[in-house]
């Protein structure tokens, strides 16, 4: 059902964030060792992904981008098949053609993933139009960053979605970085949500490192989109604590700014809150982290054992 969301155990949210962190750390270690290609990691942004995805219904559709691991894992993607995709193996969700940058998993409703910054915004209105015209109940959730918000496609997308009453939940993960340029150098305003309001689209900004706050805000936003069949823009205010892609020495990053955000690590914040409230023992918290790392180790072994695609794959699926 697409209306009321089931009660979500905050410990599940913590477990999902741990899994994403373990996945990204395995990629970082692998890329350092030369066994896994470098990717655009989402380290530091786990709460923004987990909070939003857990607010969605099974029949909602998600458009994401190059920094997609959090969205995919929170949606239930198999880390083994994801890592196989990253490593260009045949068991990857896209048969190894995508690599890390454009992973779609249609069976999970993660569709038309594009790595061209802003393309997800250009595609979202059409996906939503098709949902409406085909009388499908699911709303469309479009993840993008502050970088994409500076593309023309952001403004064209919001204008059309408002004009045509399209059920799109725009989620801007404002992670403060547009590749190697700080958001301050690239945006005339601080918040993307303020731009949405000028298109007549309801919008809000939430602390993107507080998973409970993101879940609450996204649940409310998704409910508004469902009820109104109108777009809504949720901005999750967060920080990309690693580089644009691996490896990246981050020499261009202000150490004080990064340190301030690391002190607000979304996983530590969630864990400490659960422990302090007596909802999670120290032992259980440590066990969650360990189990995530174990699961990723298994996934990595699966991916490494998966064969590379056969040469015929070079020209398969070009045309329907």
């Amino acid at each position, binding site marked *: 059902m697409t209306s009321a969301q089931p009660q979500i155990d905050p410990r599940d949210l913590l477990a999902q964030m741990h899994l994403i962190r373990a996945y990204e750390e395995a990629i970082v270690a692998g890329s350092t060792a030369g066994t896994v290609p470098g990717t655009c990691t989402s380290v530091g942004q786990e709460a923004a992904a987990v909070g939003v995805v857990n607010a969605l219904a099974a029949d909602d559709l998600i458009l994401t981008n190059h920094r997609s691991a959090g969205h995919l894992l929170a949606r239930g993607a198999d880390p083994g098949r994801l890592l196989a995709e990253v490593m260009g193996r045949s068991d990857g969700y*896209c048969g190894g053609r995508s690599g890390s940058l454009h992973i*779609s998993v249609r069976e999970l409703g993660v569709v*038309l993933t594009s790595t061209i910054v802003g393309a997800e915004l*250009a595609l979202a209105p*059409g996906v939503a*139009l*098709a949902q409406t*015209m085909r009388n499908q109940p699911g709303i469309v959730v479009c993840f993008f960053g502050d970088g994409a918000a500076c593309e023309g496609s952001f403004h064209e997308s919001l204008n059309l979605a408002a004009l045509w009453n399209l059920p799109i939940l725009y989620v801007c993960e404002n992670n403060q970085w547009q590749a190697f340029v700080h958001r301050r150098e690239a945006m005339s305003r601080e918040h993307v949500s303020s731009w949405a309001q000028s298109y007549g689209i309801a919008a809000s900004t939430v602390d993107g490192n507080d998973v409970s706050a993101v879940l609450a805000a996204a649940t409310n936003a998704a409910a508004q989109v469902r009820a109104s069949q109108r777009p809504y823009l949720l901005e999750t205010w967060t920080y990309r604590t690693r580089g644009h892609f691996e490896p990246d020495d981050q020499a261009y990053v202000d150490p004080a700014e990064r340190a301030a955000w690391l002190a607000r690590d979304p996983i530590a914040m969630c864990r400490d809150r659960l422990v302090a409230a007596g909802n999670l023992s120290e032992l259980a918290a440590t066990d969650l982290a360990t189990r995530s790392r174990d699961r990723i180790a298994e996934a990595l072994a699966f991916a490494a054992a998966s064969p590379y695609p056969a040469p015929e794959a070079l020209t398969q699926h070009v045309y329907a």
Partner: protein
Amino acid sequence: MPVLTLNDAIGAALAEEMRHDPRVLIFGEGVATKRQDLVREFGGRRVRNTPLAEGIIAGTAVGAAGNGLRPVIDLLFAPFLCYAMDELVNSAGKLRFLSGGQFSFPLVTLAMTGAGWGVGAQHNHNLEAWFVHSPGLKVVMPSTPADAKALLKSAIRDDNPVVFFLDIGLLYTPGDVPDGEHCIPLGQAAVRRAGDDVTLVSYGKTVHGCLEAAETLAGQGISAEVIDLRSLKPLDEATILASVTRTGRLVVVHEANRLCGVGAEIAAQAAEKCFASLRAPVTRLGGPDAPVAASYPLEQAFVPQAASIAATAASLCARQAA
């Protein structure tokens, strides 16, 4: 047989396909304004005006096609496709492959181009070769109203993105259009005139220049075969190569810039696959490496004309006789 202009033939194809399949819809700049008959029959949900923003029109079409609809979009003039390149080339052309075949993008992009209205290079630019060079896309450019209708019906039914160019110079030329369900498969060229001495390959309005040239050549005792490609991708190599193998002479004619145009590919194919049959150098006639001017005589001078096509073909035949 009904006589329709190419523009009316496009309208007829749209109406038939919208009746045929409820997933078909059309939107773009002024689509609802210009095609009131479609609005009356199918309603404003399936026939939509849009903001004048080609990127989001194309992006919306790609998103809708990837999620179960079969959109047709009208981007007006071909140079405006530059605003839609990311959506057509990077999304429609690549996301099926990159996703391992999880999605298909059945969409048609209409765009006008070519000499005829004196609109200058920002409205007239035969850039069809760009899209031939982009994997995942099909490219069509008809030369008659009957073909325009039958090819558009096939393009709408195709599960791939099709860029469908309309030659401005042919839009209001009437022609016989057969009634009823008539589809021409994409990738099937038409032999417009059979001949033995030289093969003239073209598409769009220069097909008519080739036919006129063939008539002139006949008066000189030269029998020219005229092939209308109709679709540039897929390209009907078999028809071209069979003809060239027989005639031993090939002139490729198009309005688009000669440099890296579709003609270059056809010339290369002939050189690679029919070398032993060639009795004269393969020759291309096309526009110069220059933007198109608005001035009528300059606009016309951009386009290979019947006289130069005939002279070129005749010189190839004379070369063999010498």
